[in-house]
């Protein structure tokens, strides 16, 4: 049986060439309300936006997605489970035939909540974890007990037969123990690990060294992939490598001889190489505004006024389809504009780092043992705490 596979490959190829009528996938920040306080939150999640789409408005967006052929919707936030109608939205979305996933931090997620999501037809749950160590994870995420919640959520989801992914942000805090987390996820039966570089946007942005933090964070991310490749290889797990882009990377935790290998995540977009802007995804804001990617904070339309099919033709998305511009989030971080090529994509990091002035006059501290980086403002909780103390503009 070959043609089914051919169809899937054709679909991916058509998406990659940007020829689909609508994005295959939407990452939807359904609320900015959150019960955690992660220092790096790209969504700057705290409390609900006053203009958040209500249930009827959100269902109208899902109707538009189904009519337009948007196959995958991932509800995120903020914490999507703080929305009372989230179960209704999941149920509605799966009734429309949309492959529906949800990301959660796992805090206060009692088993009944997962049962309700399963009842609503949820097809995948992603849980964010930054360390196997409670002290580190809970400090990074700002609330005690959050790691216990995340682990409990994963276990119950697996027990209920729900597909699971663990999502790790590569920071100075998480970097040392990522291999442990990788092994833990395999042992627990998690299907996929998603590794995310830390993007200097939202709450992560605004430090003295955003550009440096981005460059070093990118190196940390790329080196983490290499480290995981070495661990994965003997276990039969393929860890895709990236060299220039540093875009969130999905790693299938099933061995290649497993009959369902590469079947875990929606359609493997996070396993596909290259920038997904204008090809694979958009990001929806709580009020229905559309950004080209969760990390590219450049509005390309509004679902309150337009169909996703029209928004998909926005000039920025067309440009991203026509040119290989690197990561548009980094274009903004380094130039302030989304519609120019990402400088870190075309220039060596070392060269760019050398050009950046060191903050203050203090000499750069030596790298900590086993960590191939100098501490950089923006890449760790400690640096954010220091910012809060030294900068009067920060609360």
């Amino acid at each position, binding site marked *: *049986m*070959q*043609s*089914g*596979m051919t*169809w*899937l490959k*054709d*679909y991916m190829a058509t998406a990659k060439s940007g020829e*689909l*009528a*609508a994005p*295959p996938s939407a990452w939807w920040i359904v609320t900015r309300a959150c019960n955690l306080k992660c220092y790096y939150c790209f969504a700057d999640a705290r409390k609900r936006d006053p203009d958040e789409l209500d249930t009827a408005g959100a269902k109208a967006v899902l109707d538009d997605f*189904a*009519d*337009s*052929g*948007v*196959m995958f919707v991932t509800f995120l936030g903020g914490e999507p489970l703080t929305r009372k109608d989230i179960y209704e939205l999941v*149920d*509605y979305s*799966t*009734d*429309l*035939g*949309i*492959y529906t996933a949800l990301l959660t931090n796992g805090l206060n997620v009692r088993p009944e909540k997962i049962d309700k999501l*399963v*009842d*609503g*037809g949820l*097809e995948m749950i992603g849980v964010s974890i930054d360390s196997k160590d409670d002290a580190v994870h809970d400090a990074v995420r700002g609330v005690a007990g959050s790691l216990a919640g995340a682990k409990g959520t994963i276990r119950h989801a697996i027990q209920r*037969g729900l*597909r699971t992914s663990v999502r790790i942000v590569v920071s100075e805090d998480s970097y040392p123990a990522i291999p442990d987390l990788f092994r833990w996820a395999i042992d627990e039966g998690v299907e996929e690990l998603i590794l995310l570089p830390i993007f200097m946007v939202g709450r992560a942005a605004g430090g003295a060294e955003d550009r440096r933090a981005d460059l070093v964070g990118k190196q940390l991310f790329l080196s983490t992939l290499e480290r995981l490749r070495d661990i994965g290889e003997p276990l039969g797990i393929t860890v895709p490598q990236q060299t220039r882009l540093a875009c969130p990377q999905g790693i299938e935790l099933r061995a290649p001889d497993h*009959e*369902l*290998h*590469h*079947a875990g995540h*929606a*359609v493997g977009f996070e396993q596909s190489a290259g920038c997904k802007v204008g090809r694979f995804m958009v990001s929806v804001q709580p009020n229905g505004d559309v950004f080209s990617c969760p990390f590219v904070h450049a509005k390309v339309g509004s679902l309150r006024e337009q169909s996703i099919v029209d928004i998909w033709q926005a000039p920025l998305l067309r440009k991203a389809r026509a040119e290989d511009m690197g990561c548009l989030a980094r274009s903004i971080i380094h130039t302030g504009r989304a519609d120019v090529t990402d400088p870190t994509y075309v220039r060596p990091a070392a060269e760019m780092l050398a050009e950046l002035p060191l903050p203050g006059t203090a000499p750069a501290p030596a790298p900590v043992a086993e960590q191939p980086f100098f501490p950089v403002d923006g890449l760790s909780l400690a640096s954010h705490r220091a910012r809060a103390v030294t900068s009067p503009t920060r609360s």
Partner: protein
Amino acid sequence: MRETMTVAEAVAELRDMLAASGGNPTIADRLARGSLSVLYEFENPDGTIEPYLMRVRRDLREVAPGAVSYDEADIVIRTEPLTLHRLSNGELGGREAIVSGRLDIRKAPSMPKLLFMRSLFNSYKKHRLRTEADAQTTPGSAAEAAP
């Protein structure tokens, strides 16, 4: 978990799925705006093919034996009856079925039509989950009565 399934049983499940979808307002709403025709080419263990056409629109929900030309169907699927059963009860995801070679999409649908087909499968899966859960909590049901 079932190990085998006949074409007749798979067709009965498809009919049950269509009947169950009658109570779903989201599907009714979609049907008011469109239609779907799926040609299933069921593979028997001896390699022979048994075609069935599923047609769904506002005034019709049926699965009938016989083939049509590929042009006349929105989607053409070749599969074993057991795979369809495993898809409709959630044991197997659509992507897994395709990747593992158990589900052969011989005519690619438009994305909205594919979503419509998934909508029927999803709502049936949920309907069965809920019916099972109800049966387990209803006093005097088989699950309760078992020693």
